């Protein structure tokens, strides 16, 4: 049940974030809102793993070495940002990491319920991919709310890295073969999605508020 509470928690965060944006308060309250909600969701997930509440829960085996491609991507992004701007990379990157960790954790928590449900086997794989995509998108939105000054490219690398690390243990039975490709497929997924969102967010693509775009 923790996963449902965590999902509702993130739903509320998105709605509150939207409300803050409408009232132009997101610069001030957006980052603390995102950080608090991520910590709360992570806490709920950890509680679910520690207590025998969720009958299907298992400890997440982590294989950091499987995610070395993500580490390279993060390093290259840090170099790129350092060359082109004065952004303080580590803190911003770690904030995206926290959101990505929460999104991946929630995806696995939700996925565990889905695999033991009565869903037809044929639908399971697409649905699990859908869950992963949805939570990628939610995390991306929260990163955008948290860091309005920069585009969260690191989020995709963190997300891919965490997915590969947890998938190495085949927690979900979501056998994507990611570990064998060292996360390449997942990185492609994350960065393609981010690039698509970057393209969609081009100035004047959608006219939605009075903010100066200043790009």
């Amino acid at each position: 049940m923790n996963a449902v509470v965590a999902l509702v928690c993130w739903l509320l965060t998105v709605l509150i974030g939207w409300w803050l944006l409408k009232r132009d308060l997101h610069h001030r309250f957006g980052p603390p809102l995102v950080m608090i909600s991520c910590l709360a969701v992570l806490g709920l997930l950890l509680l679910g793993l520690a207590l025998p509440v969720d009958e299907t829960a298992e400890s997440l085996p982590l294989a950091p070495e499987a995610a070395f491609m993500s580490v390279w991507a993060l390093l290259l992004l840090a170099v790129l940002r350092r060359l082109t701007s004065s952004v303080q990379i580590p803190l911003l990157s770690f904030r995206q990491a926290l959101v990505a960790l929460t999104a991946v954790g929630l995806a696995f928590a939700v996925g565990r319920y889905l695999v033991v449900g009565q869903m037809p086997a044929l639908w399971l794989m697409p649905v699990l991919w859908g869950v992963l995509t949805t939570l990628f998108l939610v995390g991306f939105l929260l990163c955008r709310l948290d860091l309005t000054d920069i585009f969260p490219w690191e989020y995709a690398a963190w997300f891919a890295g965490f997915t590969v690390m947890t998938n190495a243990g085949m927690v979900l039975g979501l056998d994507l073969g990611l570990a064998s490709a060292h996360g390449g497929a997942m990185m492609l997924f994350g960065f393609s999605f981010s690039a698509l969102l970057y393209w969609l967010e081009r100035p004047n693509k959608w006219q939605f508020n009075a903010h100066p775009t200043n790009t």
Partner: protein
Amino acid sequence: MRFTGDQRGNNPGVPPPDKLFMVVTGLLIALVWLTLWSITHPRSHQSDCALDEECQSVQEAIARWEQLWQQIATDENNAETASSVPDKSLRAAGDTVFMRYRHLWVDVDRQTRHAFRLSALSNQLPQKIELLQPLLQAHDAQIRFRAWLEIARLQLRARDLKEAETAAREALGVADIDPKLTVDAHFILAYTALEQRQFDVAEQALEQAVSLDSGFWDARQVQMWLLTRQLDNPRQTLSDCLDRTRLLIENLRIMPALGQNRVQFRDFADLFRTGAASGNAATHLLAGLGDLWAGDRDKARDQFLKVKQSRGRLPVRCAALIAAKADELLNSVGSRETP
């Protein structure tokens, strides 16, 4: 908002668009509904079998499960199962079936022997295969089979999985061959399937290899790894779960006898204990049996106790049958001895 960022204070950035909020809110609501539906409709509430054929396979799996325990119970010294390996010529952990059993392939003519020897001595893969090519046309089925098998092994060593698989299938296609000789071809098929992550295909091929040659150490070892992995599959049926656990127990019983070293029960128990980090009931039962057969009753008791507490994703009835067996074993082990 710049592509890589700006923090000089004069760039307020572009906030996320409304449409993104709408899409994300919609998706999250759908996800909450889907999760709630899955929680309220767990698979365990379904009957174990929806069709007659499934019911039959479940009954058969349960019968095989019970038969295994009867066999274990009637076995006087259940750790010493050497009697299940009747072939005296067996050499444990042999490479191919021809090396494990002597006198399987006799009366080989001099020319054929010479060709195989030359191929073995050659150190270039294309040359090795070229030397074997004429043997593929041989009149004797055994020679044709042996040549195909050797090519499959060479291709596997060269990591050409497709070619290895093709050669192994060709070998299996040769008629009039003693089924026992085909175990290596099945093993190569299993290995190539494993490398391509076709776990169900690999499982079937290994089952075939082990059923044809109970002394096939390598196949049993890979089978144990694969079955442990397959037991973690959350979508397995009751009969799959029971059959996999049964095969694991059978392997656990026979492998120390093949290696002719009783201590290995403990090694396998350790393997399951460390591998059972995710803690499903079957792996705890296996770890416990390994300890019990190695003579460590205290450790076995701990593992049997963990069977009920484990939170793995085994089908409910399968986990219940395993837990019932663990209870029986716990009673037979008795309570902990106080010093």
